[in-house]
């Protein structure tokens, strides 16, 4: 705990963002539900945003903030498209489990 208090804010936020990104990777690979996989994708984007914020604050440079706004908008577009695709898949197959999507398997 004392080492935690000795960290600079930059280090703390970068480590936090890395842990969020790794959790997202783990969830995306390990979970079977398509919608939870998409949530883990959002988690990964969130971790990247946190890292970008701490780099931007460390350098005192507003470029990171501008990039974060772009990332948030791209995440919104991605969520809208992916969720409508999931709804389409659910209407067709009755499930969103990623293990059931094997139509392209040779």
């Amino acid at each position: 705990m004392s080492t935690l208090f000795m960290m600079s804010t930059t280090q703390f936020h970068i480590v936090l963002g890395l842990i969020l990104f790794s959790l997202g990777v783990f969830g995306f690979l390990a979970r079977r539900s398509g919608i939870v996989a998409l949530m883990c994708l959002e988690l990964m984007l969130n971790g990247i945003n946190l890292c970008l914020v701490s780099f931007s604050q460390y350098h005192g440079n507003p470029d990171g903030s501008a990039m974060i706004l772009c990332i948030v908008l791209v995440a919104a577009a991605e969520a809208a498209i992916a969720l409508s695709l999931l709804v389409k898949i659910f209407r067709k197959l009755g499930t969103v489990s990623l293990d059931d999507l094997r139509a392209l398997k040779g």
Partner: protein
Amino acid sequence: MITVSLLQILLGILVLTSALGVVLSRNPIVSAMMLMSTLFLTGGLYISLGLYFIGAVQILIYAGAIAVLFIFIVMLLDMKTFKMVIPGRKIIGALGLVAAAMIFASFYQSILSGQHFNGATSLAGTETVNAADPKIISLHFLSKYMIAFQMTGLLILGAIMGAVVLGKPVKPKMAGNFAQNTTEEKAI
């Protein structure tokens, strides 16, 4: 050197707990709620760093729109628990854990080893530059990031059109027997 405050540690622990809830929860609606909590608390972290505008955008767009969209879709789909188990699924999960651990370890080593980012030689100097002033960000958007700004607008437009097209119900083909189609439509 600015050390971590107690508030930031508390927020960090809460963010990590919520993220673990997203990944490990069996119920998708709990996952969606935990995702909302994660995004909201991350907005709190941004505000604790002094990035008020980014924090507000995070809470408004991420926690207010995207997470609510996820909750809406989970409630719309009425998902059952997944019974079917693929034989190699546990191995894939273990490999996912290994991959996540390796990604974390490699980035941790490469970014945080040595003297980088320990705050002793912050490039911003002692005076904190307000890197998230809405005026500065909007000036950047209208000069340096003009192309990115326009492209994001185009992307949003494309995403809206794609979502509308994907959400439309599939009509039966008009090239076939017309009378059959009309009876089908009456039956519906």
